[in-house]
C-alpha cells in the first residue's frame, strides 16, 4: 500500500509544472481580461467587462472571428475529404504502407515556417505554378495566387492533414476484414460497401480528426501570417496585433480568452459525443 502511494506520487512533479506554468498563467490571463487597464504586465483598476463589450460590439472583431471560424470549418471539411482518401489508400497498401505514411506525416515534422516558405515559392509571382501557366501560354501575366483566404486554407489543409490521416487510419484499422467480406457476400458492390459499411465504421476517426483539425486551424498563427492577406486576418494574428502593435493588452487578453474557450468547447463537444457513442455501442471502443 505504501509502495502504491509512493508510485502514485511520481506524477506530482509533472502535475506541479503544468499547474504552475499553464493553469495558473491561464487563470491570470483570464483575470487580466477583466481589468480596466494595465501598467505593463500588471493589471490595474477595477473589475470590468468592458474589454469583452468592446470586442462584442465592434464589427471589426466579429468579422475576423467569423472569418477564422469559416476558414477553419472549410479547412476541416477539405482535410477530412482528402484525409479519408489518403487514409483509405494507405490502409489498402501492404508493401508501401510505411513509406506512404512517412510522406503523409512529413508536414508534421517540418517546421511550419519552412512549409509556408515552400508555398510562397510555389504560388508566388515567379513561382512554379505561374511560370508553368505562362510557359504554356495560358496566361500573359502572373496570377495573384498568394495572400488570400484561399492560400490560408491551402496552407492549413497541408499542415493539418497528418492528424486527420492518423485518426481515420486508426479507425479503419479497427474494422475487421470479415465485415467487408460479409458485405460482398451479401451482394454489395464496391461503392455500396464503401458508402454504407466502411464510411460509417470510420466515423469515430472522422470525429477525432475533425475536432483536432478544427482546433489546430483556429489557433494557427504562422499560416495566416505568412500566406494570408496583410493586416490582422485571423484571430491569432489579431491577438498578436493587439498586443505587439496596438499595445491593447486587456483587449488582447480578452480575445485570447475567447479563442481558448472556443478551442476547449470543441474538445468538450468531441469528448461528449464520443462518450455517448461509447455508451450506445456498449463501450466496445477503447
Amino acid at each position, binding site marked *: 500500500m505504501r509502495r*502504491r502511494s509512493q508510485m*502514485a506520487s511520481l506524477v506530482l512533479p509533472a502535475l506541479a509544472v503544468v499547474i504552475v506554468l499553464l493553469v495558473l498563467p491561464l487563470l491570470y490571463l483570464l483575470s487580466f481580461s477583466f481589468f480596466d487597464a494595465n501598467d505593463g504586465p500588471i493589471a490595474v483598476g477595477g473589475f470590468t467587462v468592458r474589454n469583452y463589450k468592446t470586442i462584442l460590439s465592434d464589427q471589426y472583431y466579429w468579422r475576423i472571428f467569423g472569418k477564422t471560424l469559416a476558414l477553419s470549418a472549410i479547412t476541416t471539411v477539405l482535410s477530412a475529404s482528402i484525409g479519408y482518401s489518403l487514409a483509405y489508400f494507405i490502409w489498402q497498401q501492404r508493401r508501401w504502407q510505411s513509406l506512404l505514411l512517412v510522406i503523409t506525416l512529413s508536414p508534421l515534422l517540418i517546421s511550419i515556417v519552412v512549409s509556408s516558405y515552400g508555398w510562397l515559392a510555389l504560388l508566388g509571382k515567379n513561382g512554379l505554378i505561374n511560370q508553368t501557366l505562362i510557359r504554356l501560354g495560358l496566361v500573359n501575366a502572373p496570377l495573384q495566387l498568394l495572400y488570400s483566404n484561399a492560400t490560408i486554407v491551402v496552407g492549413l489543409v497541408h499542415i493539418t492533414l497528418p492528424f486527420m490521416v492518423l485518426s481515420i487510419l486508426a479507425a479503419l484499422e479497427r474494422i475487421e476484414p470479415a465485415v467487408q467480406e460479409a458485405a460482398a457476400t451479401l451482394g454489395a458492390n464496391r461503392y455500396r460497401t464503401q458508402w454504407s459499411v466502411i464510411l460509417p465504421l470510420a466515423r469515430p476517426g472522422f470525429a477525432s480528426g475533425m475536432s483536432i483539425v478544427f482546433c489546430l486551424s483556429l489557433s494557427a498563427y504562422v499560416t495566416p501570417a505568412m500566406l494570408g492577406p496583410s493586416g490582422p486576418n485571423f484571430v491569432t494574428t489579431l491577438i498578436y496585433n493587439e498586443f505587439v502593435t496596438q499595445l491593447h493588452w486587456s483587449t488582447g487578453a480578452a480575445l485570447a480568452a475567447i479563442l481558448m474557450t472556443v478551442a476547449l468547447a470543441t474538445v468538450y463537444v468531441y469528448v461528449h459525443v464520443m462518450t455517448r457513442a461509447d455508451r450506445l455501442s456498449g463501450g466496445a471502443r477503447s
Partner: protein
Amino acid sequence: MKYVWISFNAILLALVLAPIAIVILVSFGSREVVEFPPSAWSLRWYAFALSQESFVSSAINSAIVAVTATAIATPLALGAAMSIARVRFRGRDLVQTLLLAPLFIPAIVTSLALLLALSKFDVRAVSARLVAAHVLIVLPYLIRTVLASLTRLDAVLEDAASTLGAPPIRVFLHVTLPLIRAGMIAGILFALIISFDNVSVSLFLTTPRTNTLPIAILNYVEYNFDPSVAAVSTMLIVITATAAAFIERTVGLRAVAKG
C-alpha cells in the same frame, strides 16, 4: 478505375511533398530571386545563410532551448507515465487530462499567458521564459510515448523482479528502463523536433536579440524573399529527416506523432 484511384492519391501525396521539395531545389539556385527551376546552380545561399548572424545565433538558441526543455521534461514524463500506467489512483483521468492540456490549449494563448505571468513575477531572462514554454509543449508528447511503451511492456516482468527481492528502484533501472529504452529515445527525438520547429509558443517570449530559428525565419521573410531561407530550411529538413528515419526504424513515427 483502379488507376484513376491510384493516380488521384499519388497526386495528393505529391502535393503534400511539393512545398518541401521546392524549398530544397530553390536553395541551390544562384540568383537573388526565388525561381523554379533555378537558372543556374550554386551553393552561395548556404554560405550566405551560415554567415548571417541572425540565423546562426537563433539556431544555437533553438538548439539550447530544445535540449534543455526536453532534458527537464523527460524525467517529469517518465514519473508521470509510471504512476498513470501502474497505479489506479483517484482522479487519474483528471490528472491525465491536465497533463495533456498543453496539446489543446492554443499555443499562442499559452505563450501570452506565460508572458503575463512570468513578467508579473519578474522572470525576464528570455532563455528561462522559452524553456518554460517549451517544457509545456514537449511534455504531453513525451508522456504519451512513455505511456505507450509502458502499456506494451508486460508488467509480469516487473512483478517477477520484485518477487525475487529487487527493490523498486532496481526494478526500474534494470527491468523497466531497458525495456522501454527504444520508445523513450524515439519520444525524446520527437520532442526535440517539436520544440525546435515550434513558433507559436515562443511568439511573445522572444526579443529581437534573443530569438529562435523559426521566428528568425518568420521575421526575415517579412522583408526579404531570397533563397537564403531555403538554404536554412534545407539544412533543417536534412536534420529532421535523419531523426525521423531513426524514429521510424525503432518504434514507428505513428506511435509518437499521434496528436
